[in-house]
């Protein structure tokens, strides 16, 4: 895993893009190399959906939803419904691990491409319980949410095969 959080330049967009890339690469690094079985193991009895594959799948839909729906005001694309509020997680148990990883890599690249171009002062076009937001808020939120899930993945990975870092 060669992810670095050090940008080449220290303006706002450069550091945010590099930190998002670093967080995405960290998530991938925590899931890559797990067996199909360990990637689906949820060691906390009280959270049976909290497996590495499910978290990575959730992170893909988090990015897709925030960009497509919140930022650009598009239709909902995620599998979440009123009956299945956790579909973004448990879809990860149905797909092969390689597929979960490939789809996340694809979304990660697409997200970085959007934030490389978008005006960070752009007002979001979708509706949000938080009211008016800017593109920069969404970018920072994705960094924060991915980092927090990486904390979950740190512990799940350590419980799965003892690897840390």
């Amino acid at each position, binding site marked *: 895993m060669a992810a670095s*959080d*050090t*940008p080449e330049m*220290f303006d*706002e967009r450069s*550091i*945010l893009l590099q*930190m998002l890339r*670093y*967080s995405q690469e960290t998530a991938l690094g925590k899931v890559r190399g797990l067996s199909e079985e360990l990637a689906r193991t949820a060691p*906390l009895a*009280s*959270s049976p959906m909290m497996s590495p594959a499910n978290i990575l799948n959730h992170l893909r839909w988090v990015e897709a939803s925030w960009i497509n729906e919140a930022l650009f005001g598009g239709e909902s694309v995620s599998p979440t419904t009123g009956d299945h509020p956790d579909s973004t997680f448990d879809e990860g148990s149905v797909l092969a691990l390689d597929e979960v990883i490939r789809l996340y890599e694809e979304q990660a690249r697409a997200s970085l491409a959007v934030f490389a171009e978008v005006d*960070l*002062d752009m*007002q979001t076009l979708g509706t949000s319980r*938080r*009211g*008016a*937001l*800017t593109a*920069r*808020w969404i970018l*920072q*939120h994705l*960094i*924060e*949410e991915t*980092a*927090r*899930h*990486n*904390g*979950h*993945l*740190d*512990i*799940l990975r*350590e*419980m799965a095969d*003892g690897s*840390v870092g």
Partner: protein
Amino acid sequence: MVRTDTPPAGDERSVMMQMLEYVQQTALFKVRGLSEDLARTAPISTSPLTNPASLLNHLRWNEHYWVEVVILGGEDRAPWSEEHPDGELEAGLEVPLQEVIDGYSEQVQLTRTLLADLDFDTEADKVLKDFHPNVRWVVLHLIEETARHNGHLDLLREMADGSVGD
């Protein structure tokens, strides 16, 4: 204090400082209310220092280091040393939980006060091994690192007493 990630305005500084406050308040939220015993319980056998009290103490000294030492060039007062590289984690086990919480809360206040006077483009006093950060990068790094430790605290708290939540 209301724990929210919704900023008062959409500019860079407002968004970033609100996000920092949100992750700091979340760390406190995850540790408050634990018994002395549960706050010191490390449920993962391979990481005996990964317990809520030690992690919060780590976040305190980490923030001191980045703001007061790296940005401002002040003295490193953290309880770590070459002989005790995990000294700040160990120190979290040696005092009552409330003292760990108060120490972190005081650092959070100090961080806010010190950052308020600094332009985000200001270069840090210290040049690090690979790069020379500015204030903007340090604040984002604190958000990222605190958020990741909050992920650890999420699972530690859930393993401690079953409580969950963003």
